[in-house]
């Protein structure tokens, strides 16, 4: 495969619930996966198969018990599993974007600034960052009168679109998408598909969870079957 941007090797994830009698919940077993630039891989499998857990491991949000997650960062492959928090923060700032299922609304911060934040974090000046944010919000049909409002009071679909705009604000080389279209109407679903296809043409490597089959078929070029790796079965 040309230029893998993301390589997962023998990843194991288990939860040990110390507060519940030490119950051990195996979730992922020996997951192995490689994603090249320009590829979009859809994680596929029934609820509980570990799709979200895998995505969270990739982003450094969950701590795997074993295995490696190699990410192309600064011209070399860095292992997220072994990386220091300081390095993971740098990877998140410059290399790997993440669109979570729900927006974690920050009180009092206007929608447009939430979208512009990833650009500001890498040193883009306020004006061009807001310009880019405005363009994305417009594309995702968030009316201009809402840009200066904090999204806490927005509807689920509006919050999700703010979240998507934020995820696409910076051209991350790697993107993780956790059900980005779950609360969207057909028109906005198509915008998200277009954003994904444009990112792929730029050479972005994407891993996503798409419950909507049409979106999955339009945006992804292959499915990754989780069933074979789910340890819970």
């Amino acid at each position: 495969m040309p230029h893998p941007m993301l390589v997962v090797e023998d990843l194991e994830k288990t939860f040990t619930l110390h507060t519940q009698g030490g119950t051990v919940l195996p979730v992922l077993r020996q997951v192995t996966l490689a994603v090249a630039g320009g590829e979009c891989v859809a994680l596929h499998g029934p609820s509980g198969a570990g799709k979200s857990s895998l995505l969270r491991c990739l982003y450094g949000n969950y701590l795997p018990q074993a295995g490696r997650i190699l990410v192309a960062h600064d011209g070399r492959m860095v292992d997220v599993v072994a990386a220091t928090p300081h390095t993971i923060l740098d990877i998140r700032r410059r290399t790997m974007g993440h669109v979570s299922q729900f927006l974690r609304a920050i009180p009092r911060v206007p929608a447009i600034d939430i979208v512009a934040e990833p650009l500001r974090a890498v040193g883009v000046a306020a004006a061009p960052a807001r310009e880019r944010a405005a363009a994305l919000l417009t594309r995702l049909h968030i009316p201009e009168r809402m840009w200066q409002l904090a999204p806490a009071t927005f509807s689920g679909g509006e919050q999700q679109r703010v979240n998507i705009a934020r995820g696409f604000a910076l051209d991350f080389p790697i993107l993780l998408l956790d059900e980005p279209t779950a609360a969207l109407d057909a028109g906005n679903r198509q915008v998200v598909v277009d954003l994904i296809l444009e990112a792929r043409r730029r050479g972005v490597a994407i891993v996503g969870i798409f419950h909507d089959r049409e979106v999955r078929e339009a945006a992804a070029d292959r499915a990754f079957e989780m069933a074979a790796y789910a340890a819970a079965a």
Partner: protein
Amino acid sequence: MDAPPPLLQIEGLTRTYGRRIGCKDVSFSLWPGEILGVVGESGSGKSTLLNCLSAKLEPTAGRVLYTDRHGRAIDVWAASEPERRMLMRTDWGIVHQNPRDGLRMGVSAGANIGERLMAVGERHYGGIRREAETWMRRVEMDLDRIDDAPFTFSGGMQQRLQIARNLVSKPRLVFMDEPTGGLDVSVQARLLDLLRGLVTDLGLSAVIVTHDLAVTRLLAHRMIVMRRGEVVEAGLTDQVLDDPQHPYTQLLVSSILHP
């Protein structure tokens, strides 16, 4: 990439009170622009640690290394007392849980802010007054309260004034001890938003001690969890809160409704 050195390096920091342990063998690094949350229940050693870091309480063992504006590494507890005092005036800020510990309650709000500027050599009255006004505005206080003394303010206003007093001299590192403790919920939320905006705009580094995991989630990039004076878990804030490994951290996280 020429990565900058850590702003603060803590190595094996230990403080005992006779045979009792305050904090034991704590090590971590803090980089420029990073916020570190220190959580744990009362008596876990959070405040002892903060006092050792901020040069208020001499550790029994271990080192605190601080990199100053010129890239010079200063061993804080090996430095002379005047050197330490200079650091506290020019490079560091300390926001106390109780505003009474960080403010002069008898002098005006404007003077509380201006005093810090005078301590770093500012002498022009007009300039000091203007800067005080700017900071009153930044922490969302009414300018017509500038000549009032803090004892006439609400707890939330006192805390915002304390923050202004600390940030006006442009510190590089701020230590905060339960900055939202003792405030009611709506006032807390406002203060947190304000802090979040300020640390981002100013590129501040901070160590925030709190027992409130929501405060940590909102403000801190990384966190350490303390219990009985020792660090039981450390990592990225969202990783520690969403996938806690240590039994004690799991207990902390599961004890609240929405971290």
